[in-house]
């Protein structure tokens, strides 16, 4: 069995499972946010259910429109807060103690290797980096899971992605996944699992693996999963709040396809509007002047990402025509950025440094684009209107390229700065 099949079988109480099989599986953690959980909460209340399956196995994170953007958002956030209090939800994270859900949960040790996690948010697939199975579902699925602790799933086929070599300077996890999505397309892994393998894994720190798993959904995949190795172990040993299980793929596991990637051959990638699959190598981008740069999100809001942006920004200034906004993903990262002096580098360079929030990543608040404006963002989606006006444009990149673009006033790499 593949990694995904093994974890699913264990959670369905079965010896084996096969692709295509529909199973009812036990969840280790169910996640909701301020956008998706109000619908789930309403459903739970409507059914007259007074108790959730396990008060410690539900995480509720207000991150999308918080700190409350407007009155409607405030009301939504309150539905979640009231529910958390009333039902005794242990893992509710209030503003000031929160973070973007997909960075927060693993960092808090709430997701551990071997877990099966569902979340009413499409980027729940992020935790595959920890050798866990995790996938995004809808609010109704979340409601059902909060009540029963179970979810129905179709066992996906798996695609094996074999990484080799070492990435060059300024090539990061973001470039690996953008390259893959560019190769296979936005539905290239539809209904399937992306499973990583190969000796190139040794060159991928946890932060990069989270970025890569995060964007599995941008290839249509159900999940993106990494094998458990030394790098996973040191992260899990430091963070895990529960005992974890190490799962390995069988030697004779069946894969629907295999893709090989030479990390050493990659350049930084930029995804052009309006699909993440519209990738180009940085050298082929041409002259694209920009109005805004966003560094943050569940894709690239980790401390490693801020460090990478700062390496480029140190001693430099954000271009006159550019607004740069930086969103550390969690309070812990915010504090760390302060301690390391990263915050000072950003602010001195002329960037805005914000409290953790999804903010402009989904066009919510804190950096919406006007008609015709262009932004470089370290986020994961560049759909029409994603960051504001339907005629604005978002270009996706890694944090170093985003920072370099902020200095240049156009899309460009660190090596192009004089």
């Amino acid at each position, binding site marked *: 069995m593949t990694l995904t099949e093994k974890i699913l079988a264990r959670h369905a109480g079965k010896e084996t499972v096969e692709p295509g099989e529909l199973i009812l599986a036990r969840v280790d953690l169910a996640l909701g946010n301020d956008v998706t959980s109000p619908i789930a909460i309403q459903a739970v209340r409507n059914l007259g259910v007074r108790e959730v399956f396990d008060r410690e196995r539900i995480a509720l994170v207000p991150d999308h429109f918080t700190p409350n953007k407007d009155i409607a958002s405030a009301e939504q956030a309150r539905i979640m807060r009231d529910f958390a209090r009333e039902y005794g939800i242990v893992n509710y994270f209030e503003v000031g103690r929160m973070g973007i859900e997909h960075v927060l949960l693993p960092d808090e040790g709430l997701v551990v290797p071997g877990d099966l996690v569902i979340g009413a948010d499409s980027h729940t697939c992020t935790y595959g980096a920890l050798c866990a199975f995790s996938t995004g579902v809808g609010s*109704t699925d979340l409601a059902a899971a909060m009540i029963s602790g179970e979810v129905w799933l179709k066992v996906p086929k798996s695609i094996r992605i074999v990484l080799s070599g070492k990435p060059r300077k300024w090539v990061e996890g973001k470039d690996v996944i953008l390259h893959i999505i560019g190769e296979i397309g936005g539905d290239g892994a*539809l209904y399937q699992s992306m499973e990583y393998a190969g000796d190139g894994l040794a060159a991928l720190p946890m932060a990069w693996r989270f970025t890569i798993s995060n964007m599995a959904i941008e290839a249509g995949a159900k999940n993106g999963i990494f094998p458990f190795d030394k790098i996973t172990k040191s992260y899990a040993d430091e963070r895990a709040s529960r005992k974890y299980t190490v799962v390995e793929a069988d030697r004779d596991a069946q894969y629907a396809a295999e893709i090989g990637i030479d990390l050493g051959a990659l350049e930084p990638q930029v995804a052009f509007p309006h699909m993440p699959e519209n990738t180009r190598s940085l050298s082929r981008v041409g002259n694209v002047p920009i109005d805004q740069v966003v560094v943050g999100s569940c894709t690239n809001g980790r401390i490693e990402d801020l460090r990478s942006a700062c390496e480029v920004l140190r001693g430099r200034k954000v271009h006159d025509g550019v607004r740069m906004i930086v969103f550390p993903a969690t309070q812990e990262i915010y504090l760390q950025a302060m301690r390391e002096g990263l915050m000072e580098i950003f602010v001195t360079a002329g960037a805005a440094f914000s409290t953790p929030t999804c903010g402009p990543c989904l066009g919510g608040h804190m950096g919406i684009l006007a008609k015709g404006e262009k932004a470089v963002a370290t986020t994961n989606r560049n759909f*029409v209107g994603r960051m504001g006006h339907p005629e604005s444009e978002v270009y996706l990149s890694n944090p170093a390229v985003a920072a370099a673009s902020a200095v240049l006033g156009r899309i460009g790499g660190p090596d192009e700065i004089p």
Partner: protein
Amino acid sequence: MALKGRAWKYGDDVDTDVIIPARYLNTSDPEELARHCMEGIDKEYAAKVSSGDFLVAGKNFGCGSSREHAPIAIKASGASAVIARSFARIFYRNAFNMGLPIFEVPQAVDEIDAGDVLTLDMRQGMLRNETKGRKYAIAPVPPFMQELVAAGGLLNYMASRRKGT
């Protein structure tokens, strides 16, 4: 159950941000969501759609976010079903969990033009393009999903299972 209405035709990769832009996600009121349905791609849709109409689209319909607001908005707009070459996986399960019928009928998608009158008989598993005089068989729904439908949706199914154990 037979459905009848006109086709609203869209291309590939219709994502959840155009079905219901995120700026409207600070509400989950179906009527309010319906007012902005498809706004990112078609400003006319919400105002002109008639009850029973069909959304017809290319591959990977509903890609992007997990927001159930997307099938809610489509359902509340009056559309009776979505027919596409393929669906993004979260949209597929959401639509199903919410009771918005969706069907993968690639050949029909190629041959349907905007405004064509369609009828769909779920029991017979047949989609007809009345304007063009063509008909297409629809793949049967898997048994597990039929069970969910019979129970009245996912939540009722879960609730009844819970009582049983």
